């Protein structure tokens, strides 16, 4: 299928349902929250499940897309489809094709295999809403699917990779897909108004909703340099285009105590396409990654055709949904110092729902225990200010002191110097303030090991 100009920025879902007239893929929410539109996308790196309502047609350039129609027929069901039938997983049936896709994606990514726990099974379904069944039969099917063989069809990869930098030029929008970093930087220099498209989980839905497309869009998916992860003796360097799914695995391997926090980041279909730099670029006041990366003293490596600089995260965020990035600059990687000895890390997210929710407050804290004294204290917080920010007043209360009850109460009092949170749909100012203080208390309780503190373990 060939698409011209602006058509390439339409949601893949519209191309599937309207252009290709394949109606098995359903539209539930158009915002990547419900999973009814999930399809499989295969490229040379493998096959993954994506929400086609927040994935641009341009992003599947040169890739293979599998919709539900391509999997199995009523006479010859895919093993996952059969498991869904056997557990009676469908009532109204509207979410069902997307859930089949999610389960196949989980099998392919090995998120679900014979070693998977109940929690893994549920995590694989985090991005798929069902309003009828209450999920029990779907979870039963997912459990059964841990060991079913894949049929094979969904693993077929496209034969060739596109290399041409210009993807398509339309009347009002030109879409570029540079193949390497120098081309990207050059395009950025030439088109300072261009919007960079990585995972697209925010942009595609915003464009479709506003019906307004930028004049130039640069698709980053083919820039190999951005997709690299490097481990050195001193640092972990995660390329800006590395997906959250890959980044999370690296982060957990170095900082396993962040696993519970990262589990709540996004659904598998979001994490499979969303990128680390993309998440930071939104500069969402709550952004789950930013507070954690602050606590890990992360910095961003930023490049243009002429400059190269490294910015700490607090420097990077300049305001509400704004960063200091210059028009010709591109974030190329996130730099994280390796874990020092006696390093402690705590990370908390509080939201109305466990999975796939934007937090009221996120808080991550780290320090080095120097014989009972806290050194290098960093507290990163989301949901408390107009941008993710460090709690510097709290940090200075804790720095160079023992972590005792009196100290933590003083630190909580200092929160008022750092933050004056607002009321919104996710929580009132009073609640956020109280919650932030309680999370500092929780940090201390977990450090001292006073009883159970984790609801989710």
């Amino acid at each position: 299928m060939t698409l011209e100009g602006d058509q390439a920025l339409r949601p893949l879902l519209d191309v599937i349902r309207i252009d290709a007239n394949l109606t098995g893929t359903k539209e539930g929410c158009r915002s990547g929250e419900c999973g009814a539109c999930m399809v499989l996308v295969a490229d040379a790196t493998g096959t993954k499940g994506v929400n086609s309502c927040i994935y641009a047609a341009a992003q599947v350039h040169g890739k293979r897309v599998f919709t539900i129609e391509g999997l199995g027929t009523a006479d010859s069901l895919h093993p996952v489809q059969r498991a869904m039938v056997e557990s009676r997983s469908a009532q109204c049936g509207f979410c069902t094709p997307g859930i089949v896709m999610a389960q196949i994606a989980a099998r392919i990514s090995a998120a679900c295999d014979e070693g998977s726990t109940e929690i893994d099974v549920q995590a694989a379904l985090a991005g798929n809403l069902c309003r009828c069944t209450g999920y029990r039969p779907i979870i039963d099917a997912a459990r059964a699917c841990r060991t079913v063989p894949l049929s094979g069809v969904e693993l077929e990869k496209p034969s060739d990779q596109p290399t041409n930098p210009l993807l398509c030029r339309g009347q009002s929008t030109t879409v570029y897909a540079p193949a390497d970093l120098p081309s990207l930087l050059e395009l950025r220099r030439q088109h300072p108004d261009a919007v960079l498209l990585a995972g697209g989980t925010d942009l595609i839905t915003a464009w479709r909703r506003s019906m307004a497309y930028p004049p130039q869009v640069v698709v980053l998916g083919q820039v190999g340099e951005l997709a690299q992860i490097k481990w050195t003796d001193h640092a972990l360097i995660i390329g800006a285009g590395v997906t959250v799914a890959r980044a999370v695995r690296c982060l957990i391997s170095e900082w396993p105590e962040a696993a519970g926090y990262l589990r709540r980041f996004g659904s598998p279909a979001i994490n499979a396409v969303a990128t680390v730099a993309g998440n930071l670029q939104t500069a969402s006041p709550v952004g789950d990654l930013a507070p954690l990366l602050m606590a890990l003293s992360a910095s961003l490596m930023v490049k243009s055709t002429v400059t190269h600089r490294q910015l700490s995260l607090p420097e990077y965020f300049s305001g509400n949904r704004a960063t200091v990035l210059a028009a010709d600059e591109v974030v190329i990687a996130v730099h994280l110092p390796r874990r020092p000895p006696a390093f402690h890390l705590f990370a908390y997210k509080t939201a109305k729902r466990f999975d796939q929710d934007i937090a009221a407050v996120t808080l991550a804290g780290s320090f080095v225990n120097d014989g009972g004294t806290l050194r290098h204290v960093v507290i990163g917080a989301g949901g408390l200010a107009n941008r993710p920010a460090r709690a510097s007043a709290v940090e200075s209360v804790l720095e160079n002191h023992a972590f005792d009850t009196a100290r933590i109460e003083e630190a909580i009092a200092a929160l008022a110097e750092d933050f004056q949170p607002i009321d919104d749909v996710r929580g009132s100012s009073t609640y956020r303030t109280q919650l932030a203080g309680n999370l500092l208390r929780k940090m201390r309780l977990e450090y001292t090991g006073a009883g159970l503190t984790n609801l989710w373990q």
Partner: protein
Amino acid sequence: MHQFVTGASWFTDDLPTPSNTLHVALGLSTCASGRLSALELSTARASAGVVMVLTAGDVPGVNCTSALGHDPVFAGERIEYHGQVLFAVVAESAVAAEAAVRLVQVSIDADPPVITLAQARDRGSLLTAPLILARGNSATAIAIAAECLNGQLPIGGQEHFYMEGQVALALPQPDQELLIVASTQHPAEVQHQVAAVLGLTAKDVTVQCPRLGGGFGGKETQATQFACIAALAAWKTGRPVKLRVPRQDDFRITGKRHDMEAHWRVGFDCDGRLRGLEVALDLRCGYSMDLSAAVGTRALLHLDNAYFIPDVRFEARLYSTNTLSNTAFRGFGAPQAILVIETIIERIARVLQIDPVELRQKNYYAAARGVTTPYGMRVDHNPLPELTRTLLADCDWHQRQQTITTFNARQPILKRGLAFVPVKFGLSFIQTFLNQAGVLLNVYHDGSLRLAHGGTEMGQGLTDKVAAVVVRAFGIAADRLRVVATDTSRVPNASPTAASVSSDLIGQAALNAVTIMRDRLLDFAAIAWSLPRAECTIKEDALWCGNTCVPFDQLVHAAWQARIELAATGFYRTPDIHFDAETLQGQPFHYFVYGVAASEVMIDTLTGETRLLRVDLLQDTGHSLAPEVDRGQVEGAFMQGVGWLLMEELVWSEAGRLLTDGPDTYKIPTASDVPPVFNVGLTEQLPHSVNTVFRSKGIGEPPLPLAVSVHLAIQNAIAAVQSSAGALAAPATPEAVLRVLAGNPAHQDIRRRDVESLLGAGVAAASPFGEVINE
């Protein structure tokens, strides 16, 4: 099931449409209250791909989408809520229509809106006189009772979040007829309202509904408006028109479960026997009546839940606000009422320090105590005492209570809570006339059958259940039968598929049609083959008489050739029900459905977050027509209730904009919210004296209020920290839980002795009922 997993099932939006199909996008008000002074449409009309822009002035018939009063297709001069539909753009594509909507200039002279219940009370903006259900003298009963307690409880609404959004397709037909395909729970109402809007009559409009991707009450009345707009556009342009409402518009336009505030006062003995109860329920109805009176009534009819309370006064006050018009949602007011009475029971148990289950058992409807509800209907053969004993034993209740007490004593941060809830749910539309259904049974001369009915399939298994009834009653093989999707030209005047009664009503009507057809075939066979009629039967897919066996298709073929009529209509009206909507007295329900549940939660006292650990429930289904279907209904309803009570929070701005207008801000449960231990038992052998189809029972709504046990369990976990904690609002979001833990609850309950001390201190303590509590 196969068609779902392969994506082969057709929902309304999946139907092949003619290539000249037009698409509609809606223009919504961004102001909650005011006068529409101008709509500047010329730019939109000139926009690429736009065929027409429709407003209230274009409606040839009645500008109303409902038979219940005032629900305009498009707002006229008066703007009544933020999100109200003002106009519709009809264009060659959905994208072109949506783009043109943004080009319309809307001028509104705004005035101050009434958004909250508090504002509505201040303004006295009632839709109608309060509904009152009373028995005895509650004020005296409470005054002379040994103990008295009063309190308040705010209860949130709920968005249906059917996975398939609202959608309608209108197809002009030859000779000034119109065919509508819509995702609606009430095709007959769509038919009648489309006719009224276009100035036609019902004979001119046919409505089909292939299937719904979920309804839950949200497509009972609320789907009609979209079908009317699509119909109007098709009528005006002469072309097929599709209206598929984007999710955000759907959130902003359509009604939800009623949010309510309960004000209550209860008198009881020292041993916990209830003496008198007064509850005032304030309902936020939104800008129009819709189904609010029926919702309020059903709420009042469930405030007793499982308990005999000698003297009561229940009042529902229907407040009008400048918000979307709240509507039907699974349970229809009963879940809110059951949350109120069960919260009261828990409060009494805490005050008296009695086991809350014992307290419930003492107050159950029973011959020794009383079996008549406040509305005059008897509760005979109450199975709740037995169900309670069974569930408590099965779920290890007493042992777990001790484990929890020990856990809570040891753990400073995490606290557990366990709670039990019984549910008695009344089955039947309380508007008696709706309790009727018809079917059309066609038998073809090849031996295959089609059954048409007026119900809609939305995942609840109606098709499977009706098919089971026909196959079993007829004695034929299942693959002979097709139960077909709704079409108003086959079965007229159907009631909405709602109130959990469809399998009862349609099943009985189908049984009636089968009986007629079967008798006709047996009469024919007796004569044709000279068989003794009394010994003839149809079973195992054949006519049998002694050793004579005629395969069913041969029987039918012979009957056809003998000119026997092979079509039959069946009809059913629920017997023995009556209800006076003024006095709220009568026999509104055909029967009750019962259930019990025990839920255990753990809360984090630092964050207010809750985790549901274990649920055990036992649900009465009668003799289930399809146990697997019923299990799915029970589990799904329970989790929907959990969402309502735990995380689904609707937030409005002061100006009346719904801020939680999509799944990014409005959170329904996911797979991770399912309790790790979820034991669901169906009891099929309960004594059930009422004659229902194969002694089955309706199941769609009754299990939902069992989720109240989760809310109570959180209340109990909080009580482990603060035994005098105040009212926990619903939903029990982390913020709500933390607010109560911090001593800032939604409301602090007041015990009589506290009131007396206040009075003694010279402080006027008014009850919510406007009178000073005094002995």
